[in-house]
C-alpha cells in the first residue's frame, strides 16, 4: 500500500485566508520534503525537514517522525499560491534515499 497518505486532495481558499495540508506515513520516515508544482509542471522546493518546524514567509511546515505525520500551513493565501502541493518522504532504516510521494493537493486561490 501507499506509504504516504496526503489530504485533502483539493482545497479552495479565498485570498487572505489560510489552511493546512497533511501527510500521514505508514512507515518510519527519516525526512520529508514539501514541493509546489507550478503550472509549468516544475517542482519547487518549499521545505526539507528531518524533524521539528520550519517557517518561510507565509508557509510553515512541521515533521513529527515519532507520530508519522507532516503538515504544511499556508496563511494569507495569495493568487500565486495556486498549484499542486506534494509531500515526499524518505524512509528510515537504511532503505535508501528515494522519495515516496503523496498524491498531491490541488490548491486554488480565488480573489
Amino acid at each position, binding site marked *: 500500500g501507499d506509504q504516504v497518505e496526503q489530504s485533502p486532495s483539493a482545497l479552495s481558499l479565498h485570498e487572505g485566508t489560510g489552511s493546512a495540508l497533511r501527510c500521514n506515513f505508514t512507515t518510519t520516515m527519516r525526512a520529508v520534503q514539501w514541493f509546489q508544482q507550478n503550472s509549468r509542471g516544475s517542482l519547487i522546493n518549499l521545505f526539507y525537514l528531518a524533524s521539528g518546524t520550519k517557517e518561510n514567509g507565509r508557509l510553515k511546515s512541521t515533521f513529527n517522525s515519532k507520530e508519522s505525520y507532516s503538515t504544511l500551513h499556508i496563511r494569507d493565501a495569495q493568487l500565486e499560491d495556486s498549484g499542486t502541493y506534494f509531500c515526499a518522504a524518505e524512509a528510515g532504516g537504511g532503505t535508501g534515499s528515494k*522519495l515516496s*510521494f503523496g498524491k498531491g493537493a490541488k490548491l486554488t486561490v480565488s480573489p
Partner: protein
Amino acid sequence: NAGVIQTPRHKVTGKGQEATLWCEPISGHSAVFWYRQTIVQGLEFLTYFRNQAPIDDSGMPKERFSAQMPNQSHSTLKIQSTQPQDSAVYLCASSSGLGEEQYFGPGTRLTVL
C-alpha cells in the same frame, strides 16, 4: 547555478521506437534520481545513482528500461520499444549526497503514439 537540466523537454515517439532522456545534475551533486509522473500513478521512483554507481533500481520496469551515469555530469534513461503506457513526465533530481534535499529538473514529457 542552472539547476538540474533535462533534455529534451518534450519528446514524441512512435510505438516501438527508442527514447533516450538526458539529465545533467547540479554541479557537485553526487546523487542522481529518476522519477516519473502520470495522472494515474502520480510520482513514482525509478532508480538512483551515487557517485555514478547504480544504487537502487527497484522502481524500474524490468523490461525495456535502462539507466546509466557514464560521468558525474550526466545521466541517461533509455526506453526501448516504447509503448503508449510509457507516456509520462520523466523527472530527474539530484542531491549533494544520500539523505540530503533533492532538487528536481523541469522534466521531459514523453508521448508515445
